């Protein structure tokens, strides 16, 4: 039984660390597309956290809304800005500088 508690604590610590790290990188990065992808990843990780906190209702909503719909909204905005930025946008398959 204590095995479960210890392993669970490790799991929770890793998820919490992952959340904080994702948030840190998301808010510090300079590339908008990277930030959006990190936001999606953050939403999915947060859904895992809700499960661990004991709130499966919230996990369902977070997976669908926080990651899915919000991510789509941001990607849409990115698309709009990429078209706006137009000529100095890099080729899609090209590596970032």
């Amino acid at each position: 039984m204590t095995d479960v508690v210890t392993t669970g604590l490790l799991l929770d610590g890793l998820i919490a660390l992952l959340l904080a790290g994702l948030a840190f990188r998301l808010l510090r990065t300079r590339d908008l597309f990277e930030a959006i992808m990190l936001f999606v990843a953050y939403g999915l990780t947060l859904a895992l956290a809700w499960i661990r906190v004991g709130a499966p209702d919230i996990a369902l909503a977070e997976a669908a809304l926080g990651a899915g719909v919000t991510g789509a909204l941001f990607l849409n905005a990115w698309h709009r800005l990429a078209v706006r930025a137009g000529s100095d946008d890099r080729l899609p398959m090209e590596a970032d500088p």
Partner: protein
Amino acid sequence: MTSLDLYVWAGVVVFLLALHAVVTRAHLLWKVLAINLMGTGVFLILLAAPARRDPMVADPLPQGMVLTGIVVAVAATALALGMALRVMARTGSPFLTVDPETEEPDPDAPEPPR
């Protein structure tokens, strides 16, 4: 130190990181992202902090409030994104503050009469 404490700490860290970014980052889309993250930090605290009888099941009341909050946050995000995009389309700049040296006066100011 229990699992729930870990999530409270994560919520506090995420909230403060996002608060810092809202204040310091000038790019509007990062501000929207950061406000979203502030909300999730609050949700984490709201669900993980209260005392409970059964550590495996969260309070139904905060759960209902957080569920409401998530849905409203998505609507607010859409509105904020729409407004940010509109600002960017009118000024061509992703920043709200206009630098007096390099920028023209606000092109939005003389609104044509309807």
